[in-house]
């Protein structure tokens, strides 16, 4: 049995801001240096097509997105700033308190230097990959309602080869939604390693149960974009994390939760 969390992410999206100047990058690097001393930048190229149906013409415009990655020395934790979002993520999750602190402090540093116009979405996402050694008896760790039923096909024996499901929920808090993607999968892990975030002890191809919990608050249409408030964003992220925690408790068996607690106390 493994500790399943492969990736934890907290994100805030904001109205598009101007590309960072070299001075801003230098200041950010200086400000985030204690936690994220490694800086890497990534350029993603794309294009967008605009169609004029009256004239029957198509105009293609290139899109260049620059991603500023600020990474811990382990390369397992980092913050990525784009013109529209700040993402703090880790494959080396210690606790929510630590992740939230990291997110809030990074957001504060970014806002001090970039002066964000507001915020439109706050997201929190945990991706778990459950693996069982030599077995796929998911009922021991995953709630029965999420596991595909065993199928007695009479004289023929059956073996579950694949299962996939996605459930999307709204909540009674306006703007907050939650998406669960789960199912038994076979193959490489869904969270791999990259130059911009390393996952150590990367599992090989195997059978695992994926639980991808993505909770987010999105500014409801028609409402004004609120100015950045670190406290409000922090509170929102807390609400989202509460949802994720309840999802984890809902999805996993008490036996498994006990095992995790025991393992984390070692």
């Amino acid at each position: 049995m493994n500790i399943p969390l492969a990736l934890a992410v907290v994100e805030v999206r904001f109205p598009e801001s101007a590309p960072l100047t070299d001075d801003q990058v230098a200041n950010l690097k200086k400000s985030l240096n204690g936690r994220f001393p490694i800086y890497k930048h990534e350029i993603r190229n794309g294009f967008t097509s605009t169609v004029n149906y009256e004239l029957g013409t198509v105009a293609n415009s290139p899109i260049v997105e620059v991603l500023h990655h600020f990474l811990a020395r382990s390369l397992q934790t980092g913050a990525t700033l784009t013109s529209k979002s700040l993402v703090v993520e880790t494959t080396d999750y210690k606790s929510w308190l630590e992740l939230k602190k990291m997110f809030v402090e990074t957001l504060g540093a970014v806002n001090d230097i970039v002066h964000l116009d507001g915020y439109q979405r706050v997201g929190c996402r945990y991706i778990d990959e459950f693996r069982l050694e030599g077995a796929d008896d998911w009922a021991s760790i995953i709630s029965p309602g999420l596991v595909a039923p065993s199928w007695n096909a009479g004289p023929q024996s059956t073996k579950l080869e694949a299962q996939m499901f996605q459930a999307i929920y709204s909540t009674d808090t306006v703007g907050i939604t939650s998406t669960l993607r789960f199912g038994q999968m076979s193959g490489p892990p869904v969270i791999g390693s990259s130059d911009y975030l390393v996952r150590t002890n990367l599992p090989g191809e195997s059978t695992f149960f994926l639980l991808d919990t993505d909770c987010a608050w999105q500014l409801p249409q028609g409402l004004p974009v609120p100015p950045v408030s670190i406290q409000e964003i922090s509170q929102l992220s807390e609400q989202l994390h509460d949802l994720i925690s309840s999802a984890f408790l809902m999805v996993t068996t008490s036996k498994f939760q006990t095992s995790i607690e025991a393992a984390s106390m070692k």
Partner: protein
Amino acid sequence: MTAVTLRSFDGPLTGLRDTRISFNRRNVESGVRLLQGLVDDPSSLMTLARIAAGDADEQRRQDLVNKFDENVITLNRCSGLVLLEMISASGLSWRDIARIGQVSVASVQKWRRGDGMTGANRANMARLAAILQQLPNHMIGEPSAWLEAKVLPNVGVTPLDLLAEGRFDLVLALATGTDTKGEVESVLDDYNVDWRVIFVDNDFTVVKGQDGRPVIVAKR
């Protein structure tokens, strides 16, 4: 305690990684509305990234569009009946012509009998005829067969689907400058940023097992 309710639309993903499971939801997706914010989903940048800016095909594509514009202008002078004859000569079925024209098959049959088309319908038919004329110039020997083929092996979208939604521009883009899978994916991104969720077939396929019954297996 926060109450949660199952809802029927998808939203953008949090973070930089798209690990969405591929569902073949095409046939059950009617009525589903994606969040408006999905359009601005930064995660779509991951897929947009697959097309390089300053693409060397850019000029070629623009030339294609210019040629298409000229063809449409010329063909607009033709009668509806002539346009239909040109289109049907390509092998496209009446059903598909009706679908692209967003009219009933009965309407197409009336056109064939000489009934007049509205200006909008004739413009649509002129565009379709123009595209069909142009495709053979781009190594597409059998336009009707190409239009009906999936743009990628595991993606339930054909150029015909794009034409049926008026995306002549994307069919032009597919006809040229899509020599790689990444380029085709970029066209699909332009069509629907959520295409991986809506149109991609499962990563699993059903095959005949040893016992002769269908079994689900991971695609290799």
